[in-house]
């Protein structure tokens, strides 16, 4: 079994040293209108290239663009859609991070590709495969204020799914090997699993040769684990930090799908040790039927300071290498 090192999504855009403050400075300069959009975009390009380089140097084999251009997991995508406006700040689940809430006022339509140009840029500066990450239709619908155009979270999720399916089609067509769909909201509303399932059908139908990864986080996934196996995706990304009983459940039930094991806590600075990670790998890996599994942070790394995010990735590689080496 191959255990591939992958990033889960976001990456800190600044660090504590002066030379890592470039993005923050440029952002402030743009707000004061000292620099224009184009100059700011150039800084975003540079920082994106830098965080991709940092991931590769830390040993990550499947990188992300760090979502450097994303204001937050909701408004980045939604503000580019017709029918959606962006409102005030709301706490992102149990984090100390705040996102701007989309307000849906009418039928949602895409004006053009949103993630494709970002992916194309990331790929052009990466020597390793890049995994595009998007927030899923159910989570977008749950996080939106519904003010017209749709009657329910259900119909809104399906509308978001339609535009996201176009994104998936474009990304798959240019050769993205995996496409990750983040659906943390489903863990808080397991009764809506049928909505998620219906919404994902559209995305799955457009994935072509790309593998679809469904990633859940910010909650215990154990109660939904069995049902997630039935969804039309290829890989399940699992946050182990909230789910103490998950290793036993996987050992017991196995997995038809490939798994991305979110064993590296992206919400806390403490670095993982072999004593805590190896026993889980021992239980989980033998029951997997797929040729590949992934080792990942539990969610995006932006909740950590930059230096600690890098150390987490280095730790992830050391653990994987020691584990695989020890088993040979």
């Amino acid at each position, binding site marked *: 079994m191959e255990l591939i090192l992958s990033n889960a999504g976001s990456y800190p855009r*600044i660090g504590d040293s002066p030379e890592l403050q470039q993005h923050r400075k440029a952002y402030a300069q743009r707000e004061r209108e000292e620099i224009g959009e184009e100059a700011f975009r150039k800084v975003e390009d540079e920082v994106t290239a830098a965080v991709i380089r940092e991931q590769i140097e830390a040993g990550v084999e499947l990188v992300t663009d760090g979502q450097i251009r994303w*204001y937050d997991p909701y408004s980045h995508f939604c503000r580019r859609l017709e029918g959606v406006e962006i409102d005030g700040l709301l706490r992102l689940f149990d984090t100390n991070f*705040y996102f701007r809430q989309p307000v849906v006022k009418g039928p949602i339509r895409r004006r053009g590709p949103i993630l494709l140009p970002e992916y194309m840029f990331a790929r052009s500066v990466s020597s390793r495969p890049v995994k595009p990450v998007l927030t899923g239709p159910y989570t977008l619908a749950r996080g939106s204020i519904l003010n017209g155009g749709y009657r329910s979270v259900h119909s809104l999720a399906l509308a978001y799914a339609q535009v996201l399916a176009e994104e998936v089609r474009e990304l798959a067509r240019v050769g993205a090997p995996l496409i990750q769909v983040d659906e943390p909201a489903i863990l808080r509303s397991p009764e809506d699993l049928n909505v998620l399932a219906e919404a994902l059908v559209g995305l799955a139908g457009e994935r072509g040769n790309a593998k679809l990864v469904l990633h859940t986080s910010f909650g*215990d996934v154990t109660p939904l684990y069995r049902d997630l196996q039935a969804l039309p995706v290829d890989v399940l990304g699992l946050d182990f930090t909230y789910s103490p009983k998950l290793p036993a459940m996987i050992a017991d039930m196995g997995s038809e799908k490939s798994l991305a094991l979110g064993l590296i806590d992206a919400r*806390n600075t*403490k670095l993982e040790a072999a004593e805590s990670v190896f026993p889980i790998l021992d239980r989980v890996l033998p029951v997997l039927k797929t040729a590949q599994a992934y080792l990942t942070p539990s969610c995006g790394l932006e909740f950590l*300071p930059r230096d600690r995010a890098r150390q987490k990735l280095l730790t992830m590689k050391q653990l994987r290498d020691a584990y695989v080496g020890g088993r040979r």
Partner: protein
Amino acid sequence: MSRAKLKRLGLDLPLLPTSTVGSFPKTPELAEARTRYARKQTTKHELEGLEKKATEFWIRTQEEIGLDILVDGEQYRGDMVAYFAEIMGGFRTGGLVRSYGNRYYHKPVIVGEVKWPGPMTVAWWRWTQALTGKPVKGMVTGPYTVMDWSFNDYYPNRKAACVALAREIRKEVEALIEAGAKIIQIDEPAISVRQEELPFAIEAMHLTIDGLPAYFITHACYGAFETIYPDMLNLPVDNLDLAISNSALDLLKIFEKDPFTKDLSLGVLDVHSHTIESPAEIRARIMRGVRVLAPDRIWVDPDCGLKTRTIAETRGKLEAMLSAVRGIRQELGHTA
């Protein structure tokens, strides 16, 4: 029951006691001095002088408005967790983490055994209380919130960190009581973020205050009712302070099912809005509580700290709140 406790503590409060959640905006003079201090362009001594001046300004302002229980306004605190983490043993200042847009903050890291360093807020409480005849609340951030808003490199898990913090924060509560504080607010805005952790958050509150002679208030944030009611009634405090200004919650329905067993502070001002509510609007919010709970168990305050508002907005909002409260007091007095 809690009225009896207040009486035992020597506190005679009017019907619908009015207070605030803790923070007030920094005065412009102080805000500017804090920036200069951060750039090492001014001395600690000068900064403290301005902090005291600003605190006195807020004490006089609260008296003028007519609030019943005063706060020091937290003019000397930046952030409600970082303030304690910077003084307590076992913490290190962490690297920058983004909170939204281009806003970043230094999230504290627990790197060793947490330790009470001696009184952290007592000198300020004593100094402030000496300025006024009205009771001043002791203000401490609770163990669960300090844990949740910090990284933990040291303790084996979140619960262990929380329990260790509770034992140390208790020493601060004891010191406040020894200094003479009779009403103490233990803020736990993070308490509803992980429902499954509520049992140990409650256990930590027991460790923090059990057996101590004061009237305890806990401030929780918007959303707490939806997620952790009625379990939050197990918090061993006398008064739960809850934001209702922005919520369409039907308190009657909720309390019918699970009766509210404590005193309730109704957060009736939206601190995130620049608009100054009219006394009629505020009155309606208070009446939502008064209709379902005996009025002598209800306190009235804004729904969160006011530090993000301007001084004029703060004043306007609180004056409107007092105007609404006076009206209701009069009516209830007439019908009694």
